[in-house]
């Protein structure tokens, strides 16, 4: 089937994989010795801290990415385009509200939600509905509510403001995205259209049997894991750099007044890229220096948009959409927090 030089190439590729696997195995078997070895003690401690935070974010996010890609795989295989069309209200604005409610039901965090929303949009869910889901789901979920409750048990208005804002702002953001993007031709998803069409013609088959479906699902999950994973890892690394080297004192100096404090906290939320389930505890560590309004800004903006998340969005959606989305979310959250500060807190 292949000419000799091609075969040689194949053997080379196989060898490459085996060498890689051997390296992993050798490292695994020498885990303890490597950790205690003297030669690595010379690494500056700041870089060890970067490494610790980096690995910690990666290892912590991976199970949730896996959950996300599996949900996406299930949607891909079991839910048809027709089902989605049938259950969504045809009116644009009427469909925003159930999307926000749906976001509250699905306990998906911000790492897991991106592949799921992408899959739903691919399956024919309108973009603005997907956007509502994208920003609402990471905040409006029971685990996030519980951790916010514990972190701010001295001031429950923070919890109410966070949940309330997440619900209303997700609908507002969805509506704005609809208005801005409704004239856009073609899909906002980054994919090769022709290749897609080509595929639909050829084998638009359903895999047969349970094992067939399971196999299909796992292949699907792996492919998607490798698509998303690289952005997660890059994002985690940059977030770890910021966590180690960004001097909070300088930002806090700017954060004094009521107008700039929310901006600073939103910037923090973006750069730190925390999981929405844990960010409340970090926010509470700022409660001595920052106003309640800016803490709410941190808690609402971070799960909707952060550094590692941005990388994933750029991977899946076209640049124009991601920019519109980011600008919309930033402005809407900022204005909402200013209003909240003025009237409520």
């Amino acid at each position: 089937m292949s000419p000799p030089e091609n075969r040689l190439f194949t053997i080379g590729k196989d060898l490459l994989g085996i060498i890689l696997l051997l390296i992993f195995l050798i490292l695994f078997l020498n885990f303890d010795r490597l950790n205690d070895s003297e030669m690595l003690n010379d690494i500056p401690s700041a870089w060890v801290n970067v490494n610790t935070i980096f690995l910690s974010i990666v290892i912590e996010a991976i199970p949730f990415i896996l959950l996300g890609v599996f949900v996406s795989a299930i949607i891909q295989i079991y839910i048809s385009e027709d089902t989605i069309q049938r259950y969504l209200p045809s009116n644009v604005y009427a469909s925003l509200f159930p999307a926000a409610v749906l976001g509250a039901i699905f306990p998906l965090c911000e790492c897991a939600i991106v592949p799921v929303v992408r899959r739903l949009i691919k399956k024919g869910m309108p973009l603005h509905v997907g956007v509502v889901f994208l920003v609402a789901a990471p905040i409006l979920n029971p685990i996030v509510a519980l951790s916010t409750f514990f972190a701010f048990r001295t001031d429950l208005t923070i919890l109410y403001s966070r949940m309330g804002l997440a619900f209303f702002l997700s609908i507002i953001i969805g509506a704005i995205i609809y208005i801005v993007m409704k004239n856009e031709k073609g899909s906002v998803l980054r994919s090769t259209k022709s290749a897609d069409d080509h595929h639909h013609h050829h084998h638009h088959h359903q895999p047969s049997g349970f094992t067939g479906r399971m196999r299909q699902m796992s292949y699907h999950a792996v492919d998607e894991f490798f698509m998303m994973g690289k952005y997660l890892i890059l994002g985690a690394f940059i977030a770890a750099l910021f966590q180690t080297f960004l001097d909070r004192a300088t930002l806090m100096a700017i954060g004094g007044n009521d107008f700039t404090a929310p901006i600073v906290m939103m910037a923090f939320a973006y750069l730190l890229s925390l999981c929405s389930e844990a960010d409340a505890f970090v926010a509470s560590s700022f409660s001595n220096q920052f106003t309640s309004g800016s803490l709410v800004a941190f808690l609402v903006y971070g799960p909707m948009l952060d550094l590692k998340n941005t990388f994933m969005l750029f991977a899946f959606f076209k640049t124009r959409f991601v920019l519109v989305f980011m600008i919309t979310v930033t402005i809407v959250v900022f204005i909402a927090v200013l209003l909240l500060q003025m009237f409520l807190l």
Partner: protein
Amino acid sequence: MKRYDHRFHAYIQGIILLGFALLILGFIITDNIRYYIAPDMMPFIYFALVMFFILGIMQIFRSTQKDDAHEGTSCDCSADHEMKGPPFVKVLIYSIFILPILFGFVLPDQALDSSVAANRGIQFGSGILNEDSSEKASAETAEEESVTEEDDDNDLSRAEAYLEDPDGYLESIKQPPNTDEYPSEDEVDEHYTVEDIYAEQDDIDDHYEEVAQEMLDQESIFVTEENYLDIMSVLDLRLDSFVGQEIEIIGFTYREPDFLENQLVVARFSMTCCTADAAVYGTLVESDEAIHFDDDTWIHVHGTIEAGEYDGMPMPVLTDATINQVEEPDTPYVYPSFSPF
């Protein structure tokens, strides 16, 4: 167009997945996972470990299938899963996955140190209360029993009002009685009174009550990893009840730039999910021995609780402390005892 080599990509991806599985397994076997992930998150990590092994092996099998049997080896949407770009881009992409595995194996696993503490800003005591709330605590202890019930109802109805009609509710609390304008930053916490805490968290309150009682019964309070944050909270809530009592704490040394020679902080990192969200909790120590201990030294402090202050904030201070250097504890981090999971 050159054919996309599904087999090779499945093969390499399978090996990378196995690499991740081995890394996580290694962390778990050596127990070094404690430097990265809180124990509450471990079920998710086990899930990831099992999935990585299964998926890794499946990928390698997938790579052995004939390329012609295309339907079997790729999913319906394979087109947008293919990696695009010239070979060096593919090498780059796989390096992004391989590097964290190598970092994980090769670089030393250790806890965060005081340079991170300095950057994150230390929280004295438990951080749930601050400013003058500890004074209020004692002043209002007498009233709190009577207020509790009333406030409880109040809060329940507030929550209900919110659930039924969020807009209307938000409207109705536009002018809360005790917030004229929103406060400047150093006043921001003043209106969270102790009643709020007691009324709204009966369970937690009972829990702290128990811990406080236990502490009062002890000759000398011994702070362990398990009760660290609880004791910090109780000390903040009820500092006055504990003045004069002896206490023992283990933690690492940390100093603010403006500390005197005899001052240091004995601190711990508290981790909720992962080290990215670790926060530093510390107790101020005043002792003539302080000068002998560098930052990041693990120490055991035995001192007497006094009501002191730093930077205008009242807080417990350990005076006349004896300090001894100790080994780093098995679990360098402490974890919140209430689990959000």
